[in-house]
């Protein structure tokens, strides 16, 4: 049985997996900027799930889930969001995160100038989720 998606244990496993992922480390070696992930309720998921990770030069330094209504100060510079149905496909490896963004299944807010030079890093960041033994909703 895997870890329940979007729980603190799961986020800890995500951070560990990211830090062991050489492909992510190489592609993100100059990356600076935390990510907030938002999973909007849909189908089996009846509440919003949010978690953030502190990303620095190819490593995840920190991260946790957010309480309902909690506001981070300062706000993370990048926000990646989408409905649960699309997240579910992403977890199963059936939806590529970049294709998901380009087809508006996911949204990404932040400095696009930075993201457009780091598409491979962004792809590896999100695809690492597929490496975790995840229990879905």
């Amino acid at each position, binding site marked *: 049985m895997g870890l329940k998606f979007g729980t603190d244990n799961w986020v800890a496993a995500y951070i560990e997996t990211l830090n062991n992922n*050489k*492909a992510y480390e*190489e*592609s993100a070696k100059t990356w600076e900027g935390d990510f907030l992930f938002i999973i909007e309720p849909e189908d089996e998921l009846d509440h919003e799930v949010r978690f953030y990770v502190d990303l620095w030069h190819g490593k995840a330094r920190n991260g946790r889930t957010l309480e309902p209504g909690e506001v981070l100060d300062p706000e993370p510079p990048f926000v990646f969001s989408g409905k649960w149905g699309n997240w579910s496909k992403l977890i199963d490896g059936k939806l*590529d995160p*970049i*294709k998901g*963004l*380009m087809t*508006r299944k996911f*949204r*990404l807010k932040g400095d*696009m*100038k930075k*993201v*457009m*030079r*780091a*598409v*491979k890093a962004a*792809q590896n960041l999100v695809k690492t989720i597929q490496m975790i033994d995840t229990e879905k909703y």
Partner: protein
Amino acid sequence: MIPGDKCFIVTDAMLVKLGIVSMLTKKLDEFGKAWQIFDEVEPDPHEETILRATEACSKFQPNLIIGIGGGSSLDAAKAVWFLYEHEEDKFTIDELNPFEELHMGVKAKCVAIPTTSGTGAEVTWAVIVTRTDVDGNESKLEQPNGDVIPTYAIVDPQFTKNLPKVLTAATGFDIIAHSSEGLIAEWRTDFADACCYHALDLVKDYFVKAYQNGEDMEAREKMANAASLGGLGFGNSQVIIGHAMGHSLGAVFHLTHGKAVGVMLPYILQYCLRNPDDDTALKTIAKAAKKLGLAEWKDDLAAASDAYIQFLNSLQKSVDFPHTLEECGITREDLGKNMERLVQLTNESSSITMSPREASDALIQKIFEYAFEGKSIDF
């Protein structure tokens, strides 16, 4: 008839000199349309050029923006169209990214008229702009967005009749690179496949003819169609590591786009075909070789895919096209000195994320080195 009575033409000075732009303006006069020309687009247009063109465009306030030329002029026209459309928002080229809806076409529509047969820019979402950073280093920004696909494309071979041999060869190889990379890209679809296959079929029959005799209008027409079909193909399935490496070579060594992607193509294909985790690319290219009549239906995957690579190598010879980076005029010393930046720019290219086989920094470097020496990829 295309609506719009005030046309802003984006092109380069050579096409004005050759009288190609006047073929267009005569028609515009005939139909009583006002026009103004911006003819300062250089190969691999710089951001500053786009901004200058946008300023002129804003002063003129057109309701039609016409790009006429090779990929550079068409990309410039698309970028100008985007910036002009969003004048009030004070957008920069960075806002032209694939993650936003751009709501184009309110102030003006865009017409693209290719005068080379290669980039497919008249039907694609890609806009390539050269940016110089504070240290004077150049990089090629790939700024795709589906909303900047030109409203109309006029594909007429009469505009390509005067294309010099060297450009016919380079742009022809761009078509082959689009169609080959598009066939095995991660986002391939049945519709993109159909476009890529047919583009390759046309190239196989007409590329050398168009190269040998530029006045052969049947060959010119088929190559023009192949370019747009290839554009429709890769515009949907995307290009892969070959274009990532090609853009990087273009930024560092100023190789023309077609030359850069064409010279890399056999190497990156071999690399993708050797993917130990997935044989989809191998099967696809083997099948393409059989469909194109380059291999026998009974051939196994290795023999058929090898026939495809041999086809590329022999085409390179037929159109006097370089087979190695050394033949492109790059020295071993220059390659070594710039390797770190080449690898970095390859990684920064969004095209690399669509590749069927991932490549670490070390492997990207190795592919560049093999392409320099002309060695078949064996890893």
